[in-house]
C-alpha cells in the first residue's frame, strides 16, 4: 500500500467527515434529550447560506469575519431548531412530521434557496475561506503531520466539541440529567429536572451545530454558495447517530468512515482502479443502509443506546 494514498485518504476522510461530526453531534444532543429532529438537512443549508452571506458582507480581518460568519451560521441553525422545539415540545406535534416539515421549509426548495436568491450570492466567489493551520509547526512531519497538525480550524473545533460533549454526557451532573430526560422524563421530572427546558436547550444547541456543519461547506470546503449544496449530508448525519449508538466517540469514527467512503471513489480512480464510478458515488448511501439494517437487528436484541423516550412528547400528569 502506498503511504501517500493512505494519508491523502485519511486527510479527506477527516475533511469530508467534519460536517457529519458537527451535525451528528448536534442531532445526538437533541436525541439524547428525547427530541428527534429530522430537520438537519434544512438547518445545515440555512447555516451554509447565512454563514456565506455574512462572510461576503463583513469587512475587517479575515479571521474575525470567519468567526462571525460561523456564529451567524450557528444562530441560523439554532433558530431553525427553535421552530422544531416549539412545535414538538410545546405544541407536541409529531416529531417526525415537524422535522420533515423543517427540512422542507428551510431546505433546497425553501428558505435557504430563497435567501440565496434574495441576497444574490449564488456564483459569487468567496472572499474568505478557512485554510489549513499548521499547528505547532508539525504539519510537515511525515504521515501524522498532515493528518493531525495541518487541518482547518473547523476540524480542530469539531475535535474539541467531541471531547466536550463526551465529558458533558458522562462526567457532569447536567449530562446525567440530560440522559435521564431522554430515558425516563417522568423520573427526571420527579427529581426536579425541568424536562421542557432541557429539551429546548439541547434541540437548539443541536441546531446550532447543524448550522456550523452546513457552514463548513461554504466557508471551508468550497467558498461558493449554491442551492442544496449539502446534497443529503444532513440525512446521513441522522443515520450516523443511530449507527453510533448515541455515543460521540463512535460517531466520530462513523463520520470519518463516511468521509473516507465519499472520497474513496475519486482516489481509486486517480490510482487507476477501473470500476464504474456510479458504484463509488453510491457507497456512502449503501453504507448507510447496511449500517442501519445491522444496527436495527442488534438493537432489537440488546437495545443499546436508544434513548427510551426518543420521539415521545412529554406530558406532565398533574397529581
Amino acid at each position, binding site marked *: 500500500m502506498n503511504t501517500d*494514498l493512505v494519508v*491523502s485518504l485519511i486527510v*479527506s476522510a477527516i475533511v*469530508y467527515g467534519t460536517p457529519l461530526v458537527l451535525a451528528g453531534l448536534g442531532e445526538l444532543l437533541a436525541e439524547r434529550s428525547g427530541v*428527534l429532529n*429530522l430537520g438537519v438537512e434544512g438547518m445545515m443549508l440555512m447555516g451554509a447560506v447565512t454563514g456565506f452571506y455574512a462572510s461576503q458582507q463583513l469587512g475587517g480581518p479575515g479571521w474575525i469575519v470567519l468567526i462571525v460568519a460561523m456564529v451567524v451560521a450557528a444562530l441560523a441553525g439554532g433558530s431553525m431548531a427553535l421552530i422544531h422545539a416549539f412545535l414538538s415540545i410545546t405544541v407536541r406535534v409529531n416529531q*417526525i412530521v415537524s422535522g*420533515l416539515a423543517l427540512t422542507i421549509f428551510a*431546505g*433546497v*426548495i425553501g428558505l435557504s*434557496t*430563497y435567501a*440565496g*436568491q434574495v441576497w*444574490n*450570492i*449564488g*456564483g*459569487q*466567489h468567496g472572499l474568505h475561506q478557512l*485554510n489549513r493551520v499548521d499547528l505547532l509547526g508539525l504539519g510537515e512531519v511525515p504521515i501524522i503531520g498532515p493528518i493531525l497538525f495541518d487541518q482547518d480550524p473547523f476540524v480542530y473545533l469539531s475535535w474539541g466539541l467531541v471531547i466536550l460533549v463526551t465529558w458533558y454526557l458522562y462526567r457532569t451532573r447536567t449530562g446525567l440529567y440530560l440522559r435521564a430526560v431522554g430515558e425516563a422524563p417522568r423520573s427526571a421530572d420527579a427529581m426536579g429536572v425541568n424536562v421542557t427546558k432541557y429539551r429546548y436547550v439541547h434541540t437548539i444547541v443541536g441546531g446550532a451545530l447543524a448550522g456550523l456543519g452546513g457552514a463548513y*461547506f461554504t466557508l471551508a*470546503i*468550497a*467558498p*461558493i454558495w*449554491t*442551492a*442544496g*449544496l449539502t*446534497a*443529503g449530508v444532513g*440525512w*446521513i448525519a*441522522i*443515520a450516523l447517530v*443511530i449507527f453510533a449508538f448515541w455515543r460521540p466517540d463512535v460517531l466520530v469514527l462513523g463520520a470519518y468512515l463516511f468521509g473516507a467512503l465519499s*472520497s474513496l471513489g*475519486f*482516489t481509486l*480512480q*486517480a*490510482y*487507476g482502479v477501473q470500476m*464504474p*464510478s456510479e458504484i463509488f*458515488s*453510491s457507497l456512502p*448511501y449503501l453504507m*448507510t443502509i447496511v449500517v*442501519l439494517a445491522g444496527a*436495527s437487528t442488534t*438493537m432489537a436484541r440488546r*437495545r443499546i443506546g436508544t*434513548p*427510551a423516550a*426518543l*420521539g*415521545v412528547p412529554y406530558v406532565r400528569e398533574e397529581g
Partner: protein
Amino acid sequence: MSGTRTTRSVMAIAVIAALAAGCGSTGTTTAPSTGTTASVAPASVAPASVAPASVAPASVAPASSAAASVAPGASAAAAAVPSLTPDAAAKWTTSHPFKAAFIYVGAASDAGWTHAHDVGRLAVQTAFGGRVETMFKENVPEGPQCAQVITQLVNQGANIIFGTSFGFQPSFVAAAQKYPNVLFEMATGTEQSANLAEYYGAGENGDYLSGMAAGAATKNGKIGFVAPFAIPEVIREIDAYTMGARSMNPNATVQVVWTNTWFDPAKERQAAESLVAKGVDVLGDGQDSPTTGQVAAAAGLKWTGYDSNQESFAPNAWLTATTYNWGPYYTREVAAAMNGTWKTHFYYGGFNDDFVVMAPFGQSVSQATQQAILAKEAAMKAGTFDPFTGPITKQDGSIGVPAGTTLPVYTTTGLSKYSIDWFVQGVIGSAKG
C-alpha cells in the same frame, strides 16, 4: 413500550431518506413560478440519475436527414442585432409578450455552464425589452422531472423552450410531439423534428487550445482532468484537450477522474484533490463550477477552466478556458420565432461566429505559448486545422481515425464527434465513466 416502535419508525424514515439521497433527489416537487424572475429549484444538485451512454439515435426524425452532416458554423454569421418584422412588432407587445423559456440543468448562479446560458437569456431580454418575457427553471434534473417542467412552461404560455443539457433530450423529443405549436431547442443533443432544433458549438476546438496551455504549463508532464459524465460531449473534449496538451509536450498525460455530476462543489473538490495527491501539476475541468481552480490555487498548481471566464476565482492558477457565447444565438432564434421564420436546424457554432470564445490568458502563460495557441485558433477559423483529423491513435494503441479523415460533427451512420466514445492516446482513465 412505545420506545421500540418509535425507534423502528425512525429507522424506516432514515433508510428512506438515505435511499432518496442516494437517488440524487432530496426534493421532489417543482415549485411553479411565472414572470421574469427566478424560479425555485425543484430538486437538489446531487448527481443526476440519468446519463445516457451514447447519443447515437435509434431512429432519426426526417428533418435531420437533410442535415445529417453539419459543417461548423453552418447557420451562423448573422447580423449583430436581429430585427423584427412590422407584423411581429405589432403582434408581440408589452401587453402580449412573446414568451421564451429556458430549462437549466444547474443553478443560474453556478459561475459556469448555466451562468453562461443565463447571460444569453438576459441578452434576449435586453434585445427585445417588454416584447419578450423570459422565464427559467433551474436545477432541473436530467430525468422525468424535465417533462413536468416543460408541461408547466407550456401551461404558462411559453412560445419557445430552450433546454441546456444532453439528458433533457428524451423529454424534449416527447414534448415536441405533444405540443406541435411550441418551438423547442436542445443544446448538445442530436434529435430533430419540425419543431425541435439542436444547437451547440465546437467546444472541443477551444478545449484543444486549453490543452495546449496546459501542456505548456506542466513541468512533470502530468495533467489531471476533473470530468462530469462519460458521454461523447465530454469524451471528445477530453480527447481534444489531450491532443492539444501533447502538441506542446509529446510526453504529457491527462488523467481523468469522473465526478458523475455537472455541478457539486464538494465532489469536484474531492476529485481535484485526488488528482493533486496523485502528483499532477496542472488541472483542467469540464465541470460547471470553478472549484477545481480553487483546489489548484491552494496547491500552487495551474488550471484551465470551462464554460465562463472564471479567472477571478483563482487568478494565480488561471491559464485560459473555452467559453460559450449563447446570447447572440438565443437572440437570433427568438427573433426568428417572433417573425414566424423559425425553421428546425442543427446549429454548430465555432470561433468563426464568436459562439466559442477563448477566455483571456492568465499571467503565467508565456508569449510563445500564447502565439502558438493563437496560430492554431487562426488555423481553425480558416478551416485548415481540425483536432479530429487523422491519424488519431486510441488509448489502447489502435487507430481511431485514419490519416486523411476528419470526423464529421454528426452523422446518423458511423463515427462522428457526437458519438465518439473512446479516449485518445495520452489519456489515463476509463472512457466508460
